[in-house]
């Protein structure tokens, strides 16, 4: 059973440095040749401080968590059955573009936990994992909201 009382609980805080080399690697892995992700000069000519962070780049936060299995452990602590859980949804909300060289601070917490009836009469639990990213002036720049579905 998913522990509903964990809703709203903060799990961890972490530093999230937005690095140029890591952006290049990421942009390459999503097959996007846009020079805005590779060339600092080009990015500056478009009015940005440096190469841009690709929209889904914040998913690489796992490299900066206290441990490699952090998300897995968190889902286990929530009482989710890892073998029967899927990553159903992700949503990003951007307050402004983020460039290489910025040091963001991430805060990861459990959002809403709710249930729905499945087509086959069972109960599915929906668990939100929310990651907020703040800049050096503690202004929120990006939010990533994941929905995990437990079908056990």
């Amino acid at each position, binding site marked *: 059973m998913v522990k509903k009382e964990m809703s709203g609980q903060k799990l961890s805080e972490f530093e999230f440095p937005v690095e140029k080399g890591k952006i290049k690697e990421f942009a390459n*892995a999503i097959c996007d*040749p*846009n020079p805005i992700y590779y060339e600092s000069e*080009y990015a500056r000519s478009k009015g940005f401080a440096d190469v841009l962070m690709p929209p889904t780049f914040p998913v*690489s936060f796992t490299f900066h968590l206290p441990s490699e299995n952090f998300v897995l452990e968190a889902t286990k602590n929530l009482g989710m059955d890892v073998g029967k859980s899927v990553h159903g*949804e*992700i949503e990003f*909300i*951007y307050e402004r573009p983020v460039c290489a060289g910025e040091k963001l601070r991430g805060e990861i917490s459990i959002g809403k936990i709710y249930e729905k009836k499945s087509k086959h009469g069972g109960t599915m639990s929906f668990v939100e994992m929310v990651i907020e990213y703040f800049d050096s002036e503690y202004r929120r720049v990006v939010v990533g909201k994941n929905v995990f579905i437990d079908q056990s």
Partner: protein
Amino acid sequence: MNANAQRYFEDVKDSETLPSFEIIISRTHIIKYVGAGGDFQPIHHDEEFAKSIGLPSIFANGLMHGGMLTRVITDWAGDGVIKRYKLRFTGIVWPKDTLTFLGNVRKKYQENGENLVDCTLMVKNQKGENTIEGEATVSLPTKQKAQQVKEI
């Protein structure tokens, strides 16, 4: 490298089709994204493990093609304009799948002084099944404003 032109709000047409593209997914794509994205669950890189739990092979992390899909928006709208990006993972992507990345304009409107466009996004496989259903909101500049800036 293909630099992206800025799209202006006035030029957006209702139900406009966004430029699409295709990628045939290889194991290299899948593994490269694992390295860049940082999700090291064995189902995304360890063929022996995947087979041991009854899967035909490894399969892609949904955020791999979810990341590739951002290009449908940015190639069309320009850089640093995404306000919101949401994905629902609706199907599994296997090695050798041919994915088509698609999008279209759903709604254009003004809100709080911003010129916003909502888009519907999709990743289809070679069988015509949706593996991702997504949506994005972009904030676009107007030509009129750009002209004023030039004159200053």
